[in-house]
């Protein structure tokens, strides 16, 4: 695994960590708050709806109870007020029915007096039911056993759903019954009044689970249904029970509110929960939509911000690495420089002595008797060589010293463009021989700057000389351009020579690194450039493509820090 993919892995891991962290931190409280609020709201809303429905059903239960009680009382009153004989008179009975109907708007359909054998002795009402025998009717058996009786709804002789209330009276040892039929429609409307929302309606069932009111929405409960609610222990003190139950056939959930009427009928209110809690559901939906949108926003932002942050970190890391590298480079150069300076001093003197000794021998060779020697030419050649090599040593040591020197130059105002032109004119002749064109592309807005002109000259000389050397005799173009950018003067020196292999590119500023043949280069030129540019607070960089050429870029700040 190379370093770059390692870095990429590290940064992608960092991004993921950041994303997970930010999402976790922002989602946890959001989810907590939303779920707490929703559940609180859910509970309180349920309570509210339940209380509301309970109250509604309670009121209706009371209504129905009192309705039935009232009717029973009316009949009771009649039984107590009038004698059997009076009521057996059909005209009288009709008179009383008319009075009741006047009071209660046809709630009472008819009146009948029935003796203990089930025979209807007198009848007042729209049907022809005189002398009908009820002795086999279920209701009669119960009515004759109880003082008051309210029947279930049944069709009876008339073939129309109705129910009756009866009051039993005793004359001597004989029972008789006053019976009245209650208008089914009038009773029904009492229950049908109880309707809430789209699906909420009420109905009454008897002990057998049979509907005692008009069925709404084809709802047909059975006996089990009744017993389910009777057995249900979840009953409030006022006899109201609220149950939520799934309807398996439709797959819908219903809320049932039940109340037991006094005559053991069960008033049931039924509503789809989705209808009953429509507001709650809508709020939940809105909350969820807000949550989803917010979540999406958070996720998107997190992704974006994390990516941005990590790329910034990566950039900073990169810069740090680069800076570290530069610091190391500078430190390395400085320590090598000091070492080199020491060596140069020490070596310079022996070299000087050697050269002097060689010179002395040369002097002696001038003398008459030695001139005869047949090896004179060889002597002279060897001495000349010693001299040349001594000079080479001197050159090296001087370069080393100038490289190591820290403050050896006087700064003055320099116009870089002029300086470059001077250097170019110096090297033009050589370039011409090598068939190389030096093209200067100098910006007009380069400001003056304070720097040692000789040092700067040395930098350009070295760089251009290197370019000329690199291109050898093959010809080519050296492009020198200057520009001024944000307080920095930037100088590019580009050649289209053979380029520097990547392996060497990292080492070119190291002292003594050279690719030139032995004796041609000291490996100090670029080190000196580096030192000079670095000292001025600028930087020098090299970019190279093999076979394409090399570009050296020097960036020097116009205003230096006042620390020297």
């Amino acid at each position, binding site marked *: 695994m190379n370093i770059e993919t390692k870095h990429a892995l590290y940064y992608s891991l960092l991004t993921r960590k950041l994303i997970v962290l930010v999402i976790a931190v922002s989602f946890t409280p959001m989810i907590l708050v939303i779920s707490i609020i929703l559940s609180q709201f859910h509970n309180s809303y349920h309570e509210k709806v339940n209380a509301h429905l309970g109250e509604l059903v309670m009121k209706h239960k009371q209504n129905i109870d009192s309705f039935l009680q009232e009717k029973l009382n009316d009949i009771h009153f009649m039984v107590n007020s009038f004698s059997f004989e009076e009521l057996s008179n059909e005209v009288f009975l009709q008179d009383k029915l008319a009075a009741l109907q006047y009071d209660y708007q046809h709630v009472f359909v008819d009146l009948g007096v029935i003796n203990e054998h089930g025979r209807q002795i007198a009848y007042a009402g729209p049907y022809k039911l005189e002398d009908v025998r009820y002795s086999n009717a279920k209701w009669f058996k119960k009515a004759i056993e109880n003082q008051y009786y309210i029947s279930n709804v049944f069709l009876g002789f008339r073939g129309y759903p109705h129910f009756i209330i009866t009051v039993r009276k005793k004359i001597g040892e004989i029972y008789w019954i006053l019976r009245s039929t209650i208008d089914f429609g009038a009773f029904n409307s009492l229950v049908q009044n109880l309707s809430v929302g789209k699906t909420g309606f009420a109905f009454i069932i008897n002990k057998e689970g049979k509907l005692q009111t008009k069925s709404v929405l084809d709802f047909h409960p059975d006996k089990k249904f009744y017993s389910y609610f009777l057995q249900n222990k979840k009953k409030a003190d006022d006899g109201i029970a609220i149950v939520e139950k799934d309807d398996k056939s439709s797959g819908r959930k219903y809320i049932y509110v039940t109340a037991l009427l006094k005559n053991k009928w069960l008033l049931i209110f039924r509503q789809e929960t989705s209808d009953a809690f429509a507001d709650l559901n809508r709020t939940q939906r809105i909350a969820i939509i807000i949550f989803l949108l917010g979540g999406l926003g958070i996720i998107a932002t997190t992704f974006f911000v994390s990516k941005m942050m990590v790329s910034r970190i990566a950039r900073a890391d990169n810069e740090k690495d680069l800076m570290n590298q530069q610091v190391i480079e500078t430190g390395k150069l400085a320590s090598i420089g000091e070492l080199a300076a020491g060596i*140069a*001093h020490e070596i*310079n*003197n022996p*070299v*000087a*002595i*050697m*050269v*002097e*000794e060689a*010179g*002395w021998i040369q*002097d002696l060779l001038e003398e008459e008797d030695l001139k005869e020697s047949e090896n004179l030419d060889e002597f002279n050649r060897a001495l000349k060589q010693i001299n040349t090599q*001594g*000079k080479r040593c*001197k050159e090296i*040591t*001087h370069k080393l*010293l*100038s490289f190591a*020197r820290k*403050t*050896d*130059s*006087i700064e003055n105002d320099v116009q870089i463009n002029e300086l470059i032109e001077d250097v170019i004119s110096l090297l033009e002749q050589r370039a011409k021989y090598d068939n190389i064109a030096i093209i200067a592309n100098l910006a007009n807005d380069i400001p003056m700057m304070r720097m040692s002109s*000789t040092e700067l000259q040395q930098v350009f000389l070295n760089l251009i000389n290197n370019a000329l050397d690199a291109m050898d005799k093959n010809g080519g173009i050296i492009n020198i351009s200057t520009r001024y950018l944000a307080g920095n003067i930037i100088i590019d020196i580009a050649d289209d020579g053979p380029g520097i292999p990547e392996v060497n590119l990292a080492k070119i500023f190291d002292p003594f690194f050279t690719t030139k043949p032995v004796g041609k280069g000291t490996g100090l030129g670029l080190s000196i450039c580096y030192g000079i540019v670095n000292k001025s607070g600028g930087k020098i960089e090299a970019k190279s493509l093999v076979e394409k050429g090399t570009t050296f870029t020097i960036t020097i700040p116009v205003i230096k820090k006042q620390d020297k």
Partner: protein
Amino acid sequence: MSSVKILLVDDEIPFVETMTKRLIKRNFDVLTAFSGNEAIKQLQEHMSVEVVLLDVKMPGMGGIETLGEIKKLYPILEIIMLTGHATVESAIEGMKLGAFDYLMKPCDINQLVSKVEEAVTKKRMHEDKIIEARVKEITSKRA
């Protein structure tokens, strides 16, 4: 030009020895010293020295210091600095203190000789001028 008396000052004994031989061979009268102190002593003993060849880097009293000392005692003397490393600073400092010129070691003998001759010429010119001035002074006094 009559024989010129030179004082060669360097702490490197072999260098001094060889250089002395080469200069003598070129008809110079050479005195030697291996330190700044010794150089001043030699100058006190031999008043006829005209040019001093002075190494910049010496242990004890350094070249620049010696230069200052000599110039203070014998302002008319011409001094050529020999330096291992030609730094602009030391050169300028030397010039400020009155050195005639500076040469880089190892130096070409012919170059050295011509520099010495220039220095002597300058020195003698100075001397002539001084003598002339004195003569003028004396004659004007008489008049």
